[in-house]
């Protein structure tokens, strides 16, 4: 029997989004969004893209934490609660019905128009066939996705890494507190729990090893620098629960992140733009693997640093 598992996952996914539309409480929105991302990541997996699924799962963990840090004040200090109450108080009247019907009609109309012009669902596979036939010779490695990210389209990857650097700078700059040092001296609530401490001691090494494995084998199996870096960054989430993260050198990490970024830029310039890997694959097949592993490690290091800084800023500064 052939279970249409992708269709089921996608239907659940749509249901989650519709739920979010009609939810008014902030916490519920965030939690439903977490479920939504999880189902999304699962669907990615069913669609044959474990790399993207991993990235989405890790990213949604961070996004959920960022949202909760913002929402926490909402309830703790009773600020802005009138927004929620005002939304609940809306009474049934002609105006309120119109207020719902007008956008619904508008969106349904747009959807209907778009459906009229829907192209036929037949993807052209010229590029796919070429990539699958050539990537081992052109770039090397066993994972076609990694070889595209680090080889064929490394020029894109540079800007993607750049955007992460810029976003770390941006978060520090648009924040309400414009210094890099921490101000949060509060301890975590479960700091003194022995069970929590023991769990962390068991789990943290596993997380680190898992991240390192993903990074180092990114060119062979699913994974890569970005996913591994995110996995390593989740280590700091765990650490924050039990120990403080105030003892970590934030300024040094930020500086390091930028220097690693420079390396990420220079390495492909030397290796790919000049065509060295292209020729080296034929002469010395090992060089391409060295290049891929080096790039994965650099990207992993950079992403881990970047997300550490982001997480740190959110829990130590934005939360305060």
């Amino acid at each position, binding site marked *: 029997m052939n279970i249409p598992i992708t*269709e089921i996952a996608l239907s659940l996914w749509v249901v989650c989004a519709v739920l979010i539309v009609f939810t008014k409480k902030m916490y519920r929105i965030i939690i439903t969004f977490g479920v939504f991302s999880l189902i999304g990541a699962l669907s990615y997996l069913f669609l044959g893209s474990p790399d*993207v699924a991993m990235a989405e799962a890790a990213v949604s963990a961070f996004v959920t934490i960022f949202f909760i840090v*913002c929402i926490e*004040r909402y309830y703790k200090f009773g600020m*802005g609660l009138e927004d929620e109450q005002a939304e609940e108080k809306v009474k049934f009247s002609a105006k309120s019905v119109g207020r719902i019907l007008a956008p619904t009609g508008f969106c349904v109309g747009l959807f209907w128009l*778009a459906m009229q012009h829907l192209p036929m669902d037949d993807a052209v596979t010229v590029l796919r066939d070429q*990539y699958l036939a050539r990537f081992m010779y052109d770039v090397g490695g066993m994972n076609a996705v990694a070889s595209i990210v680090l080889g064929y389209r490394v020029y894109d990857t540079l800007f993607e890494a750049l955007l992460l650097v810029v976003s770390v700078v941006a978060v520090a700059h648009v924040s309400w507190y414009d210094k890099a040092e921490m101000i949060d001296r509060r301890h975590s609530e479960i700091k003194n729990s022995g069970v929590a401490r023991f769990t962390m001691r068991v789990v943290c090494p596993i997380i680190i090893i898992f991240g390192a494995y993903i990074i180092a084998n990114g060119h062979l199996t699913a994974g890569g620098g*970005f996913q591994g870096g995110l996995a390593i960054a989740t280590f700091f989430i765990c650490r924050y629960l039990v120990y403080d993260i105030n003892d970590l050198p934030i300024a040094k990490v930020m500086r390091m992140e930028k220097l690693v970024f420079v390396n990420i830029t220079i390495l492909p310039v030397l290796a790919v733009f000049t065509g060295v890997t292209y020729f080296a694959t034929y002469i010395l097949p090992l060089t391409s693997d060295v290049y891929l592993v080096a790039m994965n490690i650099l990207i992993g290091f950079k992403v881990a640093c970047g997300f550490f800084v982001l997480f740190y800023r959110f829990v130590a500064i934005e939360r305060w």
Partner: protein
Amino acid sequence: MRLDIFTMVMFFVSFFGLITSRTIIKSIVFILIMQTSVVMFWLIVGNMHGSLPPIDVYNIDAENISDPLPQALMLSAIVIGISVITVSITMFNNLFRKYETASWDHMEKVYSNEGEGEQ
């Protein structure tokens, strides 16, 4: 069944959310949903001729392998998405501290009053 209709539905559900949500945080959530639906769309495009991951491709039939290019692009798109969203969340937090409200309308009112006071 056409899978890309799901993403089309999602795109307009999130669009509906964007034009109806009253709080900034909800708008940000809907932008994230929009991004997810676009990512899903690309992966469905890559999935149209085969759904096996493009890893270790020499041991499987090439006809059943999904397209690696959309996957590589969507990795970039996800990183870009979270970078931009993080900036928005930080800006929201800053605004929330200043105006003590998360609602677009309340904030607009307070903000425009403030602007008139300066001039």
